[in-house]
């Protein structure tokens, strides 16, 4: 049995994205990739695409977040690919935002979105599926 103390790569918890994340696309050196936002915190985001995503490197993330309380359009948000899991069913990648290159407006929007997701987060029923069981 392995007893090395490796731990998780992720620094902080990401929250399941709600339906207000739309139009996510990643600008990579190899071209633009359309993606689905999976989970998020103010430091990074998990994305999924049926297209190929580079294994690493700097990228620009564009996406729109629009709910009744907050609308924000992120344009070419700087970040880097931390991991990319390639399978036949699609590529799952994690992006870490380059915080020191973000505008104050973007940074504030990221924090507000994270706060909103924290408030909506239900660890006992992540997908809100079991209320009627």
């Amino acid at each position, binding site marked *: 049995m392995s007893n090395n*103390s490796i731990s998780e790569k992720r620094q902080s918890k990401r929250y399941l994205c709600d339906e207000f994340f739309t139009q996510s696309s990643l600008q990579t050196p190899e071209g633009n990739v359309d993606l689905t936002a999976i989970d998020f915190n103010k430091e990074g985001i998990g994305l999924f695409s049926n297209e*190929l995503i580079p294994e690493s490197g700097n990228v620009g993330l564009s996406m729109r977040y629009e709910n009744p309380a907050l609308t924000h359009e992120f344009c070419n948000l700087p970040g880097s690919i931390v991991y990319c899991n*390639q399978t036949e069913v699609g590529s799952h990648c994690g992006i870490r935002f380059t915080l020191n290159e973000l505008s104050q407006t973007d940074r504030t929007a990221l924090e507000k979105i994270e706060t909103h997701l924290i408030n909506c987060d239900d660890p006992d029923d992540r997908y809100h*599926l079991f209320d009627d069981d």
Partner: protein
Amino acid sequence: MTANQHNEIEIPVNQLTLGMHVIRLDRPWLETDFQLQGFVIKDPSQIKRLAKQCQYVVIRSNSKSNSTFTQTPNYDERRIKKQGLFARLFKKNKPLTKTKSVATYHHIANAPPVPEKRIIYTDQIGTGKELPTAKITYDEAKNSVNHLMESIRVGRSVNVLESSKAVDHIVDSVIRNQDALRWLTKIKHQDAYTAEHSINVCILSATFARFLGHDEGEIRRIAISGLLHDVGKSRVPADILNKNGRLTVDELNIMKEHTTFGKDLLLSIGHADRIAVDVAHTHHERLDGKGYPRGLTASQIPYYAKIIALADCYDAITSSRCYDGARASMEALDIIYKCRGVQFDNDLAIDFIKCIGIYPPGAIVELNTGQVGIVIAANINNKLRPKVLLVRNKDKKIMSEKPVDLTNSEFQGKIKIARELPDDSYGVHSRDYLSMGAIMDIMRNQS
């Protein structure tokens, strides 16, 4: 509208009559001279045109005069009941004739059973008692899949009797107990991905079909489709299939051809079960039309392929490939949840998440105390408080293994799961504990 009204039926072209609504052929529409992909037969000349280009078609069951095809037992069905669907493969090299079609006449569902027809299964045996049998079943299935793929790869004649038996044993185990084989799907070996993935998809789809309330025959059909869904990979060059690194765009495009290879292969060896052929061909199609190989849209994708696509995605994401690490069950469920309605059927995706559960057996979890453990069994009455085998203390150091039931009153409100971790987090690997027998001993004592 009921599932029966949605049902699709496969019939030979020579039994078509006016008024029937043809929705699929035994070949891609694009390979025929029909302009529309689906139509109601209004003229005998349309039947003649169909007869020149296909042997059988799929019609909507609520179209005219199809009732005679629904449940009539025939030789094939009796043989399938006796030998499993693989019985068809013994018709190898038998020439297809237009007077005697080898098509199956069973119902082709395109939705789960309606509530009043849904079968509610209960485990007949505890997980611990089923596990030793399940382990043998899994190992046999792995051998037979390896043998099947190797036979195809080197051009030997394909003997699928052992695979047929393996599927029967898998379905029998899943019906006896829904968790034991699913436990084993968590144990993955990087160098055996293709075989293990085929078996895991078979197990997961059978478990899902049981959850949806399908009857046993339907569960077997779905399980066989799951086992054979990637059979086309045997035609993908080994240096791409087993590449120790990420695939390039060109390599990925070759890999994507496994769907067409699979369809052609199953047809060429005389596998006339249309469900398995369809699933091998269409399990990477997406609802939004961005899938492959044909870019089908939601209504064109067979129900069975939608089921297999979910099991396929879940196992692929949670598997450790030669070029990347595995992801936690919850990350795979997150992806399925977020891609529902776009990549996956919305209702089936939700049902699949319910079937797998938030903390499935074999999941590595961290408690709010900081301790780390392995989920050994779900609690039926509280999905969020399973039985856990603790293996790391709050400082993530090795501790004496200790089983705890999180539903116990002493833990209520104090100790609960904080999050799921990927396998191998803090050096905890579920397969180590299973191979040591620790899990089996604990569960056997609790059964």
